[in-house]
Each structure stands twice: as C-alpha cells, then as structure tokens.
C-alpha cells in the first residue's frame, strides 16, 4: 500500500515536469509553484515520508529540466541557486507543516473515537446491575467497545477472575490464558498501567482513590495508556456505583423485613390480648354480683387472665428486644420523673417505698416510659422478694458522666453464683424457683431496655443482708429542674 503511494507521488512529480517541459513549455517559476502545489497535496493526502521523497524528486527534476544549464544537475546562475534553495526549503517546510496538521487531525480523530468507545463502555456498564455483574460483564463490554480479541478482569472484592468466554473462539481463549491469574492479582497492586506491545497485552489496575477494586487485562490492539487509565477509572466508578446501589437495596430490604417483624409482633400482641379482653370483661362483670361461693373461683379466673396478659406483654417485649426492635423515644428527662412515674404505676395497695433522689442531678437521655418500666420491674422484684414491712429504697445519684438509679431491699440476697445469671431469660433463683409467681423474663427485659439505651445494669448483694439493683444511664448537660 505504502509502496504504491510512493510510486504515485513520484509519478505525479514526473507528470508535472513532463507536461511543463515538453507540452506547455512554461517558465521556471510556474513549474516551481506547480511542483510545490503537488508536494503540498501529497503531504496532505499521504504524509511526510511520501512528501519528502516527492520533494527530492521535484528538486532534482526542477534543476535538471528548468535551471540553466538544462539537462545537467548543476546550476550556473547564482540567482538560480537562490531560487533553487528557496524551492527546496519551501518544499520541505510545506510538506512538514502539512504532515503535522494531518497528524493532529488523525490524533484528534483517534481521541474522539476513544471517547466514543469509552462513552459506549460506560453506558453498557451502567446497565449491568449488581457490582459482581458489572465486573463479570466488563470483559464482554470492553471487547465490544474497543475491539480487543480478548479481555480479563480480576474482581478483588469477590476474589474472582472473569475472562472472555468460549464465544471468542479458541484464539481468544488462548489469548486470555496468556495473562495468568497471578499476573492479574499483581496488576491490582500496581500503581499504573503496563503495556507489553510485543505480546499485545495491556494490564491496568482498577482503583477508586486508594481503594483497589481489582485489575483488568486487554489482549491484542491495546489502546493508549491514557485510555487504559480512563477505562480502569470508569470500571472502578461503575463497580463502586453498583456496590453502593447493592448496599442501598440490601438495607432497604433489611428495613422491610424489620418492619414486617414489628408488624408481626404487634399483631401477636393484639391476637393474644383480644380474647383476654373478652375473658377479663366477662369475669369482672360476673364478679360484681357473684355469690361468695363463686367469688373465689371467679377471682382466680380474673387473676389468671391478668397473668396471661402480663406474660403476653413480656413475651412480646422480649421478642422485640431480641429482634433489636425496641423503639426508644429518647428525650432529656429527670431521674426524679422516671422514679415517680414508675412508683405511680405500682398497684395502689403496694408497700410504701422510700425515695432518695440526690438534688441538682443532671437530666438523663432516655425514653421515659421504658426507663420507668425498668425501675418498676426492680421495685416489684424488691417488694416481692423481701419480707413485708422491710424497707425498699429507690435512689438516684450522679457517678461521673452517668446517673445511677438503685433499688435496695432487705431480702434474702442473691448467692454469688446466681448473680451473673440473674439477668438471663427464664432464670429463676434457687430459693424462689417454686414459691413466687413470675415468668423469669422481668430482669432480662430490664437488661434489654437498659442496654438499648447504651447503659449498664448490675446487682450488688450480700446473702442474708439484701440486694441492690443498679442501672446507669448517660447524663446530659443541663441541670434538673
């Protein structure tokens, strides 16, 4: 192809010389300008090498046919020497300028083509869905966009290597095998692209900032290094975007399943409490006008309905805590308010409790209802497990950045080996396993509530002397009103 272009260039110069020498018999200036035009045309159409060869031929021919003495390659008239040199310089400069412009055009065209390919690649990559899919389809996408015969991609988060498949034929297969998995893994650590033009293999890391997402290999006709970097960056962005998308849809589905759990727990509570409502309303209605002989039995039904109701409430509360579905509505609240709310929720006939809240306490950041439920549970336990008439003291004080609320009783105390397990679900103390009503969930629920607040609950006890249950909640800035 190239040879023909050289031949054509020489032919064109020869034609101009022949026509002007023998057919039209023009002067030297016309011949020189026409030859320059011809050289310009050659360098524009075909390039610098062709134009240079044509220039040399033109200079020789011009000298031979148009400068005195005609028919020789020597120049007699000094004026003609100047004209000859001017012609020579002009011919070479024109052809160079023209070739330069031509090269720039070609480069711009190549740049535009690469941009188009990159754009096409991005568009297809954006449609691939999940991050893994984006990575696995990348080899096909990049082959299609850049016309490589084979490609490979190492997806680091999944530790997988994707290669262009059997549809690329045995040539492609063999070509991808030219890049080993190890080479791909090494490329993921590399700082920049590496191109082996001889073997036609280009390797590039795929990274976003400092985070490596893997590497890629393009085999045969690798594009420029700049384009390779661009492809690597685009692949990284596309994969990262898909990963963010995966993450978002995962958290959305997690949220939905959480919402479902909450709905199930709510409907469970509703379904248990609805029949209890009928039982309770019916039995309390009967109790109003009951004969003494029936009163005892009806009272048992009433009490057991209450117990079932508590049990249901505790089971649901426990399930909610274990599902991490405790819905805290925290606000700054005074320890005194928590304690007084808890005590006002005790039965009217409960033993009096001594309250000992330190003055000027900072507020705590807590859900007032749940915090009061913890205090109520601890006070109920204290009342239940200590002899009638013995004091139960609720206290609140500041310890560093925390407010510690304590409930002290003069009960039998808790043996050391039971202290750690007392907050476990269904654990019942050895002394009380058979003699007290309860579900064994009260303290586990209290612990769940306190821990959901980021607080801590514990017990200090001296067997025979009594126990003190404490829980600590974070204090916040302001002072108690």
């Amino acid at each position, binding site marked *: 192809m190239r040879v023909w272009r050289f031949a054509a260039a020489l032919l064109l110069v020869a034609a101009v010389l022949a026509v002007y020498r023998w057919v039209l018999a023009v002067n030297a200036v016309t011949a020189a300008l026409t030859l320059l035009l011809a050289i310009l045309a050659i360098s524009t159409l075909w390039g610098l090498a062709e134009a240079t060869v044509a220039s040399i031929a033109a200079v020789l021919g011009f000298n031979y046919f148009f400068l005195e003495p005609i028919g020789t390659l020597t120049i007699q008239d000094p004026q003609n020497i100047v004209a000859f040199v001017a012609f020579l310089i002009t011919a070479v400069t024109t052809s160079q300028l023209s070739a330069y412009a031509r090269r720039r055009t070609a480069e711009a065209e190549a740049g535009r083509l690469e941009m188009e390919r990159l754009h096409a690649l991005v568009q297809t990559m954006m449609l691939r869905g999940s991050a893994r899919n984006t990575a696995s389809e990348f080899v096909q996408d990049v082959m299609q966009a850049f016309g490589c015969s084979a490609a490979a991609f190492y997806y680091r988060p999944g530790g997988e290597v994707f290669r262009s498949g059997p549809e690329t034929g045995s040539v492609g297969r063999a070509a991808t095998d030219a890049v080993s998995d190890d080479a791909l893994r090494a490329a993921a650590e590399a700082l920049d692209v590496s191109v082996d033009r001889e073997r036609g293999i280009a390797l590039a890391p795929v990274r976003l900032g400092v985070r490596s997402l893997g590497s890629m290999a393009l085999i045969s006709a690798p594009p420029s290094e700049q384009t390779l970097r661009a492809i690597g960056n685009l692949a990284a962005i596309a994969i990262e975007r898909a990963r963010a998308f995966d993450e978002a849809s995962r958290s959305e589905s997690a949220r939905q399943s959480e919402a479902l759990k909450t709905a199930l727990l*709510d409907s469970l*509570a*509703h379904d248990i*409490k*609805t*029949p*209890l*409502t*009928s*039982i*309770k*309303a*019916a039995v*309390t*209605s009967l109790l*109003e006008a009951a004969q003494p002989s029936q009163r005892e039995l009806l009272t048992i039904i*009433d009490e057991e*309905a*209450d117990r079932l*109701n508590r049990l249901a409430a505790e089971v649901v509360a426990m399930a909610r805590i274990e599902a991490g579905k405790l819905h805290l*509505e925290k606000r700054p609240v005074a320890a005194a308010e928590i304690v007084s709310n808890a005590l*006002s*929720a005790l039965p009217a006939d409960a033993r009096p409790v001594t309250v000992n809240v330190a003055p000027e306490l900072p507020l705590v950041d807590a859900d007032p*209802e749940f915090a009061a439920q913890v205090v109520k549970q601890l006070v109920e336990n204290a009342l239940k497990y200590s002899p009638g008439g013995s004091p139960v003291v609720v206290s609140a004080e500041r310890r560093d950045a925390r407010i510690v609320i304590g409930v002290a009783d003069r009960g039998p105390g808790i043996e050391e080996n039971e202290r750690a397990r007392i907050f476990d679900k269904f654990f019942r103390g050895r002394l009380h396993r058979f003699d007290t009503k309860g579900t064994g969930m009260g303290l586990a629920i209290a612990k769940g509530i306190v821990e959901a607040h980021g607080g801590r609950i514990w017990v200090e006890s001296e067997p025979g002397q009594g126990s003190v249950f404490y829980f600590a909640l974070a204090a916040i800035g302001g002072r108690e*009103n």
Partner: protein
Amino acid sequence: MSAGKILVVDDDPQIRRVMKATLVGHGYEVTEARTGEEALEGLSGEMPNLVLLDMNMPGIGGLETCRAICAGSDIPVIILSVRNTEKDKVAALDAGADDYVTKPFGIEELLARIRAAMRRSPSSPEGGPRAFASGDLEIDFETRHVRAQGRDVRLTPKEFDLLRYLVMHAGKPVPHRELLQAVWGPDYGDEPEYLRVFVNQVRKKIEANPSKPKYIVTEPWVGYRFVADL
C-alpha cells in the same frame, strides 16, 4: 329508663357480646358496629350518647373513625386499645377521644370511665359567673360559647370543661391531679398526658401564638395556670 345509649365498635364478635351483656345489665342501651365505616353509617340515624371504639380495626381504623365522629358531633368517644404506650394514648386523644382504656380492662374501670365521659358538668355551676371576658377572649358559660381573636371558637365538651375550670381558678396554679379529677372525674389523676393533649388543643383554639401561650401557662412540675389579660 335507659342510662344512655352506647355504640360499641369492635371487629371482635366476642368483645361485642361481652360488652352488650354487661352494659345492658347496667341499664345501658347498646348498638353495635363491626367496623369504623359501619359505625359512621349508623351514626346518621340514631345518635348514641357515647361510642366505645376499638383502635385496631380493619378498614378505616379507630383513629380515623374517631376523627370523623368528633368532627361531626359532640358525642364522647372512649378508645379501647391493646396498646398502652403514651404515644398511642396521645394519638387517640389528639384524634378527639375523651378517654383511652387499655385492653384488657376490668368492667368496673370501664363503667367508671363511661360515667365520667357521659357526665356533663352543668352549664353554669352554682355561684359561678355566667360569662367571662379578658382581652380578646370571651366565654359564655351558659351557652358554652367561646370567642377568641374576634372569631367564634368551637371547643369539645372536655376542652370547654378544662378551660372553664382553669378560668374559675384564674391566677392560681391548678395541679395536674386536681384538673384531671375536675374534668374527667374522681377516678382520674395519673394521666398527665391527657392534660398535655387537651391543653394544647385549647391553646391552638384560643391563643394568638400557641407556642407562647399568654392565657394558659404551664407551671413546671405542678400543673397549669390561667392568666387573665390585664
């Protein structure tokens, strides 16, 4: 003679049965509805004196039904619900309910609350003033008519009773418990959230700037105080 007509709205047939048997036994007339829609349809015919409304029902649900009843009438509504968080209670009271009873409940408690909700304090208590005016607030205790900021204001019966009690004790802080018992009845006292909701509603209706009230001010940790405009 009937002690009053009560509409029981609950999707659970057993609860309706128990309610009917018990309430009829206590001299009430009882009508039933299975859903909120059915309750609202029935209301256009015979007006009950009170509605017992289940919160959690299929269809439009208790809260919506409550809003619809309260928007069109002065019939007191007691919400019955298995949920006992303060948030649920406040939502029910905000929707216009007079009271909130957590399921399961003892029948004595429910009867006491029914009596409290149906009890209407006389339009002008003995010895009290017949009318009150202060700044841009005018109250006619006889016709239960209130004007504020130059506009007629419609208060629900409980809202009116609350405002009247505070006005009667203008200048003095009224403790939570006293106010609850004066407006709802002697069985009340531990429901400060009721006061929060109703005081907010009244403020929205009579105050120029409800977030900076000038008539009904909060006395922290005590209760509320009515300030007559000077």
